[in-house]
């Protein structure tokens, strides 16, 4: 009856009771062209208290599988073969009414994006109470008590106040905790977690993963963890199902998959995973600075009141100075909201800033509008989501030629030749130039964006989370491409990322940002080999290690939230001072 009050009463180890058995599952979608199979011949058994990871890249059918188990497939998609049994219940033959009462009660699910899965106009408490009362005939008061217990169980700070808050008042990590509390309040036998930490920062991801593991130990819930992140798999799962194109490629214990992968695909997948310590020192000649930032400040006004007076400001970037030199990769790393993207946007002139940003010795502010256009040629940006960054109504050939058209470079024939040349450089074939962006895969689209950035032969390319939205194997190939182009053209890259492992792999120098300020700056060896600032250490430690044998040193569980960057006008965060601790390694005091 009391859901979570018995949490501490005992621990449950995986035993042999099979909770969920999927046998020969086949899911198809009906299209005009006939039936297409999305998942074919998938079988697995989930035991009590066990974590089973379903790993695979986008389009592998892992999310469809979870929706099939929940009975939540979209209208055109249906199960065309196989069985799904929850203990003795055949889920596929269950009528919708029975299925609904079972959802949440015996099988619960948490989604990737906690903001979209919570109702924005209801308080957290109301949603929890509703979820509990939908399945158990308890009074409103009793349900509220249980909701409070559930929030305490997921270690949310100030749980009493949280009950009366709305989802938008909580941070991403807190929202995902609420989702977990909601999922576990009814003590389901199976919890399906679909990319539960993908949208979260590394340090928050760490906390949520720890929490899931603790709750599982206490409640004995069987977890299906759907993820593309092999680091998360290694840390969480006992067994893994590796999927590709809707088929099971390999299934084994996590240890076996990582130590002795049987399938070629699994081997490739593991090889593509970025790991800290893989970065190789590069001997490329590093030249004069191509971009220099001096005391750059970016603030966004927050208007309020009847007359829209600026009462507060978001201090996105506070007194940041660094330079990027010809031929090097300079990385800015930090968690969401630390101001790294604001710097990128300030450098290309998309957001206003104070301080001085020089590109090849001149600042935008020094020039008349006509000359600014010429300066724009020297710095190009590649955005995170290539689909959003390409106009869907233009052919990719036109898109890549467009920078040349804007800057009136070459005749139409010359432009066409140049576009074909650029396509070859980024690994696309020239006969694809008359297609539209939606006809390409994510990795190919990012290549198109890179070709577009290269068209003007810039001195500096800013890669703003450019590989974050890509699958690991695609990510590895795009990173290889960037490196090859850098060597060939001697371009400087300002690489912006939240992924410590990727940054370690490709950077020459690294700056760690926290709340708009740089807290540590140095060469890759300095920052990763000898991290001095506690925040840098925390970031590095939080990265999931793709090695099941890795034993994580016990660290202090970090509670509490990142302070807000919003301050009243006139106020602001304390300015950090950087001190050289040797060899140009700057650390905040």
């Amino acid at each position, binding site marked *: 009856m009391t859901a979570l009050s018995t949490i501490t009463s005992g621990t449950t180890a995986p035993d042999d009771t099979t909770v969920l058995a999927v046998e020969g599952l086949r899911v198809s979608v009906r*299209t*005009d*062209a006939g039936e297409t199979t999305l998942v074919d011949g998938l079988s697995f058994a989930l035991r009590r208290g066990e974590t089973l990871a379903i790993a695979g890249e986008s389009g592998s059918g892992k999310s469809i599988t979870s929706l099939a188990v929940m009975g939540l497939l979209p209208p055109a998609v249906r199960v065309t073969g196989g069985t799904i049994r929850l203990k003795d219940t055949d889920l596929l033959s269950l009528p919708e009414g029975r299925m609904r009462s079972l959802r949440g009660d015996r099988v619960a699910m948490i989604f990737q994006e906690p903001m979209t899965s919570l109702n924005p106009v209801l308080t957290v408490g109301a949603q929890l109470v509703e979820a509990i009362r939908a399945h158990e005939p308890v009074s409103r008061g009793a349900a509220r008590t249980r909701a409070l217990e559930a929030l305490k169980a997921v270690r949310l700070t100030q749980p009493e106040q949280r009950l009366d808050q709305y989802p938008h008042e909580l941070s991403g990590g807190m929202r995902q905790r609420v989702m977990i509390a909601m999922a576990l309040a009814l003590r389901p036998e199976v919890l399906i977690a679909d990319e539960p930490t993908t949208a979260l920062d590394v340090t928050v991801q760490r906390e949520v993963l720890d929490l899931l593991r603790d709750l599982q130990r206490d409640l004995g819930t069987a977890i299906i963890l759907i993820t593309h992140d092999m680091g998360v798999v290694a840390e969480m799962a006992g067994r893994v199902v590796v999927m590709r194109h809707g088929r099971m490629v390999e299934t084994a214990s996590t240890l076996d998959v990582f130590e002795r992968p049987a399938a070629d695909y699994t081997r490739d997948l593991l090889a593509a995973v970025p790991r800290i310590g893989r970065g190789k020192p590069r001997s490329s000649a590093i030249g004069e600075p191509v971009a220099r930032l001096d005391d750059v400040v970016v603030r966004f006004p927050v208007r309020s009141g009847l007359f829209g007076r600026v009462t507060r400001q978001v201090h996105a970037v506070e007194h940041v100075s660094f330079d990027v030199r010809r031929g090097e990769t300079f990385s800015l790393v930090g968690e969401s909201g630390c101001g790294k993207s604001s710097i990128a*946007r300030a450098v*290309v*002139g*998309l957001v206003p800033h104070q301080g001085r940003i020089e590109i090849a010795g001149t600042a935008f502010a020094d020039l008349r509008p006509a000359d*600014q*256009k010429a300066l*724009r*040629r020297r*710095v*190009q*940006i590649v*955005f995170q*989501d290539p689909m*959003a*960054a*390409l*106009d*869907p*109504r*233009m*052919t990719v050939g*036109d898109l890549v*030629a*467009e*920078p040349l*058209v*804007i*800057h*009136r470079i070459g005749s*139409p024939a010359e*432009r066409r030749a140049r576009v074909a040349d650029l396509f070859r450089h980024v690994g696309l074939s020239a006969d694809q130039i008359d297609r*539209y962006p*939606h*006809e390409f895969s994510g990795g190919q689209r990012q290549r198109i*964006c890179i070709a*577009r950035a290269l068209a*003007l032969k810039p001195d500096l390319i800013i890669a703003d989370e450019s590989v974050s939205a890509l699958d690991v194997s695609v990510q590895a190939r795009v990173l290889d491409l960037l490196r090859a182009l850098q060597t060939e053209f001697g371009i400087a890259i300002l690489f912006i990322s939240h992924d410590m492992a990727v940054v370690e792999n490709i950077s020459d120098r690294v700056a760690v940002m926290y709340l708009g300020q740089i807290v540590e700056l140095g060469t890759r060896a300095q920052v990763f080999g000898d991290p001095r600032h506690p925040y840098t250490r925390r970031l590095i430690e939080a990265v999931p290690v793709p090695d099941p044998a890795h034993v994580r040193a016990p660290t202090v569980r970090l509670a509490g939230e990142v302070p807000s960057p919003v301050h009243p006008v006139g106020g602001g965060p304390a300015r950090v001072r950087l001190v050289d601790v040797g060899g140009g390694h700057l650390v905040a005091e």
Partner: protein
Amino acid sequence: MTDVVAADAAPKPAGALVRLLRRKLALFGLALIVAVVAGAVFAPWLAPYDPNAQHFDGLTLEGAPVPPGGAFPLGTDLLGRDLLSRMLYGAQTSLIIGVVANGLALLIGTLVGVTAGWFRGAVGAALMRFTDLMMAFPALLLAICLAAIFSPSLWIVAMVIALVNWVQTARILYTETTSLAERDFIAAEKTLGAGTGRILWRHILPHLVPTIIVWGTLGISTTVLLEATLSFLGVGVQPPTPSWGNIIFENQTYFQAAPWLVFIPGAAILLLALAFNLVGDALRDVLDPTQRGRA
């Protein structure tokens, strides 16, 4: 620059037209539009009688209109005039209202909406507050005022309709433009150094085309009926000039006795709006490259 645009654009219209004609519904809609336009243009030759002539045998002995059939294929109206002839001449008026006035309204709406949405700030605020003002103003009253100031004629009516009908388009395109302006690909264009004109013309406007088409086709029936309302109030097209709208309004009180007098012009308006709708829908799909190659 111009030659590149021309080279890119040259093969597209042909392709788009062929793809448009391959759609049965679009073809049907296009045929209807062509028929109406032909009827209006060739009315002097096609019409069996003078549209304003009151025929002696156009009324029954009791003075009621003649039902369709015989000498008058679509019957006659209350004054004994031939309905077919009036419908053909009326198509001229209705087409001018539905296409010209409505097109003008779309043009003003697009200009105001896109300008306000792109520039925001003081310009945008001023334009949108003016739009709100126009929205709050009773359209009919404004139309009556304008028509009263200028002496009523077809072109004044068209202008009046254009001046009251652009507000919805402006409002909707304003919202769409503001959200488009925030999209990454527009930011990407800015970092490439693209000018405002290029961004608006090549990257914003194409994305607004579907909305403009939908509003344009919806506007046709509304404007045709608004013209009828104005005519009914005496500030529109002056009698005896026929229009589809005023045929309905003149005869609606005798709906029970002579239903064809309301039914036939009503069906004509409906079919014209439907035809533009079908063509518009097809055009929207054909012009959207993201729909190409989809199963």
